């Protein structure tokens, strides 16, 4: 019998060693009778009685002792083979023998009872502890209701029914019960009170109704039939109640967590909606207005426009639509990355390839502008989402081309530092005023006209950065990295994205043949 045993009823100890002890003692006495005197023989009997008490129930011990004394008297006490007692000494011997045996047997029985109670207590404590651990490890305590059901059923030795609260009304039913049973469970749940024998309420009921109490209210109730428990003890009920309360507290905790999560998600959805609305009102209107203007001009004034003018209007529409496409990509990506639990499409990617893709896209968009790459040799592969990283670098390059001045080429640099890769997109533009250096990363912030970043004269060129840097930073952070802004010593901005490199992860083919 181990303390991990979850089922409280101890296995019935076998009785045969007791009988064996008595038999052996009888044989020994028979053998030793010619050698030893009566008082010494009697000691054997006392010894046997004490030993046998280890296995026999108190009643059995008493009966066995009485029988043994009778047999002893009959077989050994002179006159032998009669029940009469010859001498006073022998009468004293026999009665002492009987008393000592009985006392020993009773003491043994008490000891055993105490040990049994101790064991049960330890076992119940263990059960509570285990169930508590199970509940803690479980995300949804409801899934552990069957464990509680099994534990309670093993306590009372009968199938147990459970009722769990669902939101505000009693909902989930587990196990079987009659309509009275379910009604009783509902009552116990509503009033958060135990009912049944020994509880002071509905004493006449044949079953216990125990609430699963949380701090505020009951979150469920259990029906424990007492058909197999003729005398249910308060300790048993206290233990069952403790198990139920553990469940109640766990359910309450789960409810609270759930409520907090949904409140957070709601707040999140609200913030996201505001962001998207801001994006649409802030960044979409201008390109749309330009497209509409150019398209309606082509539509309404086609015959009055020169071929060159028509060409320029069409080019404007293409450019602005492309711009709108970029803003849409960024806004959608920001919304997507904001979704909790988003899974990235991670794969091993080479920095050279990512940068190469960005260079090609920039050249396709603005063939007249120079973008250069300076990559350190021997960069390790990165475990990233290629589409997102390209979007990040592409936004930074687009930004640098727009605001970074045309005097010097935009530069993409990649360097390996101790445990990270630094990707920098640099320009030689006018830089960004200190007040704006953090705010540019907020969605829908841009350097105001009038600061030294962008002159009002090139206002049209400043458009579209609203969500760009915000999404870049979100992408960097989604990869466990960061995006920061550094002012360059001889003028210009350097937007620097650091990404962690895990050398243990960096996969390399076994043979480069």
């Amino acid at each position: 019998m181990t303390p991990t045993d979850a089922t409280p009823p101890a296995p019935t100890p076998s009785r045969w060693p007791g009988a064996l002890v008595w038999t052996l003692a009888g044989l020994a006495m028979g053998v030793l009778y010619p050698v030893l005197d009566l008082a010494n023989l009697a000691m054997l009997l006392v010894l046997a009685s004490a030993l046998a008490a280890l296995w026999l129930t108190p009643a059995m011990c008493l009966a066995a002792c009485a029988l043994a004394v009778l047999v002893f008297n009959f077989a050994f006490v002179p006159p032998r083979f009669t029940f009469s007692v010859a001498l006073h000494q022998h009468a004293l011997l026999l009665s002492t023998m009987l008393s000592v045996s009985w006392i020993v047997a009773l003491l043994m029985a008490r000891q055993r009872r105490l040990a049994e109670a101790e064991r049960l207590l330890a076992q119940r404590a263990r059960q509570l502890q285990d169930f508590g651990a199970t509940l803690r490890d479980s995300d949804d305590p409801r899934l552990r209701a069957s464990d509680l059901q099994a534990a309670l059923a093993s306590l009372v030795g009968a199938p147990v029914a459970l009722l769990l609260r669902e939101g505000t009304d009693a909902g989930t039913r587990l196990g079987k019960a009659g309509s009275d049973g379910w009604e009783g469970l509902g009552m116990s749940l509503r009033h958060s009170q135990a009912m049944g024998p020994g509880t002071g309420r509905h004493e006449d009921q044949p079953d216990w109704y125990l609430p699963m109490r949380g701090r505020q209210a009951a979150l469920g109730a259990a029906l424990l039939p007492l058909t197999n428990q003729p005398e249910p003890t308060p300790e048993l009920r206290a233990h069952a109640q403790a198990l139920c309360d553990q469940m109640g507290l766990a359910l309450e905790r789960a409810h609270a967590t759930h409520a907090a999560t949904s409140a957070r998600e709601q707040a999140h959805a609200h913030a996201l909606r505001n962001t998207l609305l801001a994006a649409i009102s802030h960044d979409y209107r201008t390109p749309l207005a330009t497209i509409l203007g150019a398209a309606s001009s082509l539509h309404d004034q086609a015959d009055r426009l020169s071929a060159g003018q028509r060409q320029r209007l069409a080019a404007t529409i293409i450019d602005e639509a492309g711009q709108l496409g970029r803003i849409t990509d960024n806004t959608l990506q920001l919304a997507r990355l904001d979704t909790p639990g988003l899974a990235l499409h991670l794969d091993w990617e080479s920095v050279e390839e990512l940068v190469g893709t960005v260079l090609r896209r920039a050249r396709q968009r603005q063939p007249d502008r120079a973008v250069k790459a300076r990559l350190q040799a021997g960069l390790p592969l990165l475990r990233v989402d290629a589409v997102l990283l390209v979007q990040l670098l592409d936004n930074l390059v687009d930004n640098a081309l727009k605001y970074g001045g045309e005097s010097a080429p935009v530069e993409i640099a990649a360097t390996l530092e101790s445990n990270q890769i630094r990707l920098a997109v640099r320009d030689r533009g006018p830089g960004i005023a200190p007040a704006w250096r953090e705010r540019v990363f907020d969605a829908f912030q841009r350097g105001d006209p009038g600061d030294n970043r962008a002159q009002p004269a090139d206002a049209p060129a400043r458009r579209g950065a609203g969500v760009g840097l915000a999404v870049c930073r979100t992408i960097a952070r989604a990869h466990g990295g960061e995006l920061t802004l550094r002012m360059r010593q001889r003028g210009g901005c350097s937007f620097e994205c650091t990404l962690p490199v895990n050398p243990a992860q960096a996969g390399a083919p076994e043979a480069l043949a």
Partner: protein
Amino acid sequence: MSLTVLLVEDDRELRTTLRESLRVEGYVVVAAASLADAHALLANTDVDIVLLDLGLPDGDGETLLTTLRRGRSTPVIVISARETDDPKIRLLDAGADDFLVKPFSLGELLARMRVALRHRGTPLQAAITHYRQGDLRVDLRAHRVRLADEDVHLTPTEFKLLARLVRNAGQVVTHRQLLADVWGAEFTEHTHYLRLYMGQLRTKLEVDPADPQRLLTEPGVGYRLVEGED
């Protein structure tokens, strides 16, 4: 004789615009707004190329590709709304010829169609064995690669990788296809092999490996060797 395009696109405006533009380019256009329509049209029409939009009301087009591939090699260009689109990659892995991400320009569409039509029927015709682009010459049969009139030495794996791209020059070849064809079916998850060998190939075949002009990357999808010159 003009070529017939089956355009499967559920958005009416885009369908109309594309139909007009393709007609101007001399194609005969039959249009379908759903996969069911497309299946019906395919059964009755000789189609030379299919433009298949994903996210149709009645499915993502995998069955259409299967039907098409049954005995025919009609090129399929997948049109996808997002850069990361699992159905798109699935269709490409399953043998679709190329893809375009919305929004795209007419120029891009026509270029993709031209390449796809050129590759049409390659399983039946002689496989492409020569590739020429700028000062790069590849002769697959002779296992020979020349750059600016000098022989380039490629390792066997590098050559296999280049050959696979040459056979589909101008078209995207997915990571999975490259890994399966060059390394074997059990290596389809080992994208890091590809990264490293592509890096080596670029070092040997590109002027600036960080700014490739020939071996292009399609992020998250695969690689594309630029279309060769005839």
